[in-house]
């Protein structure tokens, strides 16, 4: 049987007093695109960070391809929120993308030319080839997000955990990111992304995990991303629910698979 890309068993996290995540057990499919959806404070980013060991877990464990993270680190990539770093850092776009090659090329020697070319290719895939030598602080928000994505792509991971990849980017960047996601899915890789725009969940993703401190529902978008489940996740205070949620036919091929 195929191991899930990410499996959470009984995961709980607390920062101060109240638990942010309570006993979440969930498995992301071995490949394909999964959205983590829920209201503010639902613990979506925390779920990613706790899985990766970036915040301490109160209970439970996270398995990647059936193993602890330390055993399969090379196969797992992380795309943090853009706002989590200082973009005034003295580095060029290419140098940031190249950080994605260090784990494979080794940390204690200059990056060989071939590795640097891979980082450059990752920049090119997100449409940033012309900005390779630009200081990252001089890039727009959308361009910075693309550089972060390029660094993640340079990792050549099989599972990507992405924290709001579409936050604060313009339409062109959003399209560029979607194309990258589709390429990853076509290659049989898995992406688990925190996503805020309910209107595009069905368009971009095939699986969804609805979260509100606890796991509300999880499964294929077609059967899980329903007004009833959304009402449970958002506590019924969701203007979006007045509009019909776009539904895909059960069993229909997602757009990227048909290409």
């Amino acid at each position, binding site marked *: 049987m195929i191991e899930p890309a990410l499996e959470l068993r009984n995961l709980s996290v607390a920062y*101060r007093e109240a638990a942010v995540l309570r006993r979440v057990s969930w498995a992301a499919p071995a490949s394909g695109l999964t959205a983590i959806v829920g209201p503010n404070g639902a613990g979506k980013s925390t779920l990613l*960070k706790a899985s*990766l*060991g*970036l915040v301490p877990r109160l209970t439970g464990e996270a398995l990647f391809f059936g193993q602890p993270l*330390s055993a399969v*680190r090379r196969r*797992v*990539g*992380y795309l*943090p929120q853009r706002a*989590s*770093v*200082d973009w005034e*850092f*003295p*580095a*060029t776009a290419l*140098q*940031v993308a190249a*950080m994605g090659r*260090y*784990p494979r090329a080794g*940390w*204690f020697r200059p990056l060989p030319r071939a590795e640097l070319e891979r980082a450059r290719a990752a920049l090119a895939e997100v449409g940033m080839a012309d900005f390779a030598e630009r*200081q990252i*602080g001089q890039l727009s928000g959308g361009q910075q997000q693309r550089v972060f994505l390029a*660094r993640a792509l340079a*990792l050549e991971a099989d599972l990507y955990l992405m924290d709001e990849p579409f936050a604060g980017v313009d339409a062109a960047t959003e399209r560029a990111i979607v194309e990258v996601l589709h390429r990853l899915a076509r290659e049989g890789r898995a992406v688990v992304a925190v996503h805020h725009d309910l209107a595009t969940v069905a368009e971009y993703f095939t699986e969804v995990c609805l979260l509100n401190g606890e796991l509300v529902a999880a499964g294929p978008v077609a059967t899980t991303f329903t007004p009833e489940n959304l009402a449970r996740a958002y506590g019924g205070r969701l203007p979006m629910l007045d509009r019909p949620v776009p539904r895909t036919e059960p069993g229909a091929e997602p757009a990227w698979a048909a290409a």
Partner: protein
Amino acid sequence: METLLQALSFAGGHNTRMVALGCAAFGLAAGALGCFVTLRGRALIADAAAHATLPGLCIAFILAALLGGDPRSLPLLLAGGAATAGIGVLVAGGLVRGGRLRDDAALALVVSLGFGIGVALLSVVQSLPVGGQAGLTGFILGQAAGMGQSDALLIGGLALLALLAVAVLFRPLAVLCFDPEFAAVSGLPVRRLDLALMLLMLAVTVAGLRAVGLILVVALMVVPGATARLLTDRLPVMVPLAAGLGAFAAWFGTGLSAALPALPTGATIALVACALFMLALLFAPGRGVIAFALRQRRLRRDLLAELR
């Protein structure tokens, strides 16, 4: 003037030459390491650690005097200083953990506590029969005069070891400073790297105590890096540049204080570093004040021409 030229051209005799080289080695290490210390947001911790060396210096002096050792032995004094500086860093970390105190408040507290205890201990030192605190006040403002060859060797050796460690850890430290979460997911031992950065910071701090003094030693970790940052957007350029600027400031400042014996060495070194910063601030090609003003004027002119 002649003394300055002599000191700078290493013509002041073997001892002066060794002291100038030892100080320059310290500047080299402080400039390079300082880039990472500030990019990781640790400049205030470095300052707190420097102030927290004073109790250790005093305790080492007192213990040596009481036990019949040499209270002016530099390795002994620096070891004492490093010990209480390390405690100061741990105390600051403990106060910040769990959100008990904001980190700036915690560090101000460590500065006050360290320096307060140190000054109180200085009066104890003064009451000792072994001859006053003269040897110790030099550590507060820095006093290159009177440094011996073995002192210079110790400082230079410590600095060069720290520099070597920075060179080896260059890429892990760079990724850690830019994005600690990405570093952790990539499998870097983030805690141990931060610890290494802290230990290197302590090593460089105590290396600078004798020449620059504990009040101004942080200047050589912050100012050369800030100067280099004005001149380049790339870390692989910024770090060697900051190292060079730090070495120059330490070497030139030491020479200057030899020519102007009334000035403490720490002040001359820090002022040379700040003068270099001011020059870069004004004249840096991309980020300098003058370049910025010229660029703005040109853009305004072009825009007005377009509108016409």
